[in-house]
């Protein structure tokens, strides 16, 4: 598969996972949304906060799909284009 194919697949998957977090379909994930996942994921509240802070690049308290996708790409070992 080409680089673009991989990018498309990663974006699709990231969007699916983003929607698991953004249950209200607001278009962003807040810390409150993140803490809601404590019942569904095997992570502690402080770990979820750590993940949120790590993904929230501009530290504005809102996690956008773009930031989420970038973090997901990093998790997969894909470096974002310069």
């Amino acid at each position, binding site marked *: 598969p080409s680089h673009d194919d991989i990018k498309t697949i990663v974006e699709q*998957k990231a969007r*699916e*996972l983003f929607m*698991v*977090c953004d249950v209200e379909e607001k278009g962003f994930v807040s810390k409150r949304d993140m803490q809601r996942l404590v019942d*569904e*994921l*095997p*992570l502690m509240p402080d*770990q*979820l906060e*750590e*993940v949120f*802070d*790590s*993904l929230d690049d501009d*530290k504005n308290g809102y996690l956008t799909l773009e930031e989420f996708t970038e*973090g*997901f790409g*990093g*998790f997969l070992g894909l470096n974002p284009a310069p």
Partner: protein
Amino acid sequence: DPGKPGSANEGVLANFFNSLLSKKSVNSPSP
């Protein structure tokens, strides 16, 4: 410095994404 803010370790991030992927696959059974 483990107390440094905004420095989530990769293990926690990996755990988060892996858990989300598992949850997603459980919620969306393959046809």
